């Protein structure tokens, strides 16, 4: 999915502002005789640095907890979630010469790993202490391995995407955890003309394919990686539904998701989970819900991949400390609290929150995230940003848009 029309934004402390605030702290500390602060501030200046490039979803709002925990500073230069731009930057711009870590949605490792841009993960690296306790569901998933099973990355965050809906308008109990069918998106008379469908082929095409496949309306091998002919069948179905007036709009950006929900312009939308949270901030708790589905989910994950050239530089230890941090409880708890996203070792996140005196509500929310993900991840399918037949699939999607 594309987020191209950026208008909104998060407040992110940069390294510089962080240093500024830390030196300011150091200043006050020196004046105020809290001398214990000084060594910490001095250390911050000469911490080893890991340079990362990728989608800022994986970034913490503020990296200082990580710096305090592992003594490594992370400088992330951002990119949007356009896989074309991301792969171009790595393949054509030799980013590996200046960047240590790449963070992106699943799929790039299938191409950039074998072509020599990513280094294989050393699972026995002494800094990667949490590797063994990480479940195979995460660490061996398609997100971080290629079809041959080579380990190219470390899982960072992930979620199982479905659709947001208004229980009241669909006649459901607001707290229902009933599994709904994707037919609400595509095929339901009650929702006709009240559906928003994502405009990007990589995000929206597979969900439609999943619906057709699991209801037996079409034969499709791998919904995440269709052949051109399979994509044609799905496109034909979508064109038929489009002409029947199923879709109120094909949206383009994250802000649109939030706006469509908060303005109640649509009843159902295949969106990101944070959009539902944002909408509920305005409309009240549980006004909108993020669906549990019968057929499955668009399961995605972000992986962290090490640049091939980085393995010859002298900060490999620091890189692996950061990778290990992504598997740890502090990162897990902070990501779940800020975005509602899950990841490997959720139990460590819960433990971290309990040890650090988070409120009962926050701990409960973490546990709920853990349970939700466990329930959802048992169903198909794992998405990829790089289907083998991307050219044919993209052509078919254009046919749908032009019809």
């Amino acid at each position, binding site marked *: 999915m594309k987020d191209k029309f950026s208008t909104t*934004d998060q407040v992110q402390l940069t390294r510089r502002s962080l240093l500024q605030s830390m030196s300011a702290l150091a200043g006050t500390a020196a004046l105020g005789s809290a001398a214990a602060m000084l060594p910490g501030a001095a250390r911050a200046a000469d911490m080893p640095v890991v340079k990362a490039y990728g989608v800022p979803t994986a970034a913490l709002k503020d990296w200082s907890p990580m710096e305090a925990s592992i003594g490594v500073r992370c400088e992330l230069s951002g990119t949007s979630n356009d896989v074309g731009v991301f792969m171009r930057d790595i393949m054509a711009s030799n980013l590996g010469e200046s960047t240590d870590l790449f963070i992106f949605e699943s799929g790039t490792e299938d191409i950039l790993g074998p072509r020599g841009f990513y280094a294989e993960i050393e699972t026995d690296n002494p800094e990667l202490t949490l590797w063994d306790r990480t479940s195979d569901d995460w660490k061996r998933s398609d997100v971080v391995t290629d079809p041959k099973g080579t380990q190219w990355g470390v899982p960072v965050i992930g979620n199982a995407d479905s659709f947001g809906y208004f229980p009241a308008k669909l006649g459901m109990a607001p707290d229902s955890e009933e599994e709904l069918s994707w037919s609400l998106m595509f095929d339901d008379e009650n929702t006709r003309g009240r559906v928003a469908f994502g405009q990007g082929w990589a995000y929206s095409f597979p969900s439609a394919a999943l619906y057709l496949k699991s209801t037996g309306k079409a034969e499709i091998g791998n919904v995440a990686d269709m052949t051109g002919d399979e994509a044609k069948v799905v496109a034909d179905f979508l064109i038929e539904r489009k002409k029947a007036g199923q879709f109120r709009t094909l949206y383009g950006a994250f802000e649109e998701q939030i706006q469509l929900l908060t303005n109640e312009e649509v009843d159902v939308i295949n969106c990101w989970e944070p959009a539902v949270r944002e909408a509920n901030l305005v409309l009240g708790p549980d006004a909108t819900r993020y669906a549990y589905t019968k057929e499955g989910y668009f399961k995605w994950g972000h992986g962290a991949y090490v640049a091939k050239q980085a393995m010859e530089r002298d900060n490999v230890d620091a890189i692996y400390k950061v990778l290990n941090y992504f598997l740890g409880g502090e990162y897990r708890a902070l990501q779940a609290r800020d975005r509602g996203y899950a990841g490997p070792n959720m139990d460590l996140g819960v433990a971290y929150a309990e040890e650090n005196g988070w409120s009962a509500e926050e701990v409960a929310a973490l546990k709920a995230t853990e349970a939700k993900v466990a329930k959802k991840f048992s169903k198909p399918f794992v998405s990829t940003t790089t289907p083998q037949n991307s050219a044919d699939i993209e052509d078919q999607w254009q046919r749908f848009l032009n019809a």
Partner: protein
Amino acid sequence: MTDATAAHAAHTRREISYSPAWKALGKWAGYLMLALIYFPLLWLVLLSISRDPLSGIPGPFSLQHYRALFASDAWHMPMLASVVIGLIVGLISAVTATIIGRAVPTMKRPGQVLLMFVLPLFVPGMSMGAALFIFGRSVLGLDLGFWSIAVGHYVWAFPYALLIVLVVTLRFDRTLIEAGRDLGASDWQVFRDIEFPILMPGIVSAGLFGFLMSFNEVMRTIFLRGTDETMPVWNWIQAAAQQSQVPIIFSLSSIILLITLPLLSAVFWLLFVRLNRT
């Protein structure tokens, strides 16, 4: 009889033609457009002081997004980069457009040259970005960064600058130059004392347009930035962060609006005062 009707009809036509309604129509249609431009902007200002701007409905009001904006310095560098690149692009556009714009009217067949210079206007931003990227990075193997952003912006801004200068130079009376020479002025004197004052509004506008075209450019920049960030690119990246959306961009736009309105009014007013004197 027929003559009389014809004369009468002609007379009515004349009266319609003299009607002050035409002037009013032109004026008010334009004002309507300005209203359509500024209504969303004012709405935006209202949203920027609302607690939940993304709902699109103003209120309840709060200054929290402004506080967030000033608490963060993440946007300072991209903003600075955009302003500096814009100034450079504006300046170079104005100078080069003046050189080309003065040469074109003296040419025998200016069509092809002109076509070459305005071609980027018709090339979609992403195509031009992709073309420059392939050329600079894949063919020449250069490291992209602020310099290539500036090049991409220049290629986009120059046709505007050139056409604006041409509007002035095409109507410039070249006999003035001959007159100046006959009076014994050096070429530099002719340019400085005769041509430049007449071309000045065009040259200044060309520079201004160059700056403006660069300031908000995003599609070419995405291809040419390396890993450097300008203001629009920063916005573009942040949208992918999937985080609680604090629309400090709304606040930023509001501030820019409130700063530029009086500033630009003053600039244009000064230009007019000068123009009226000469």
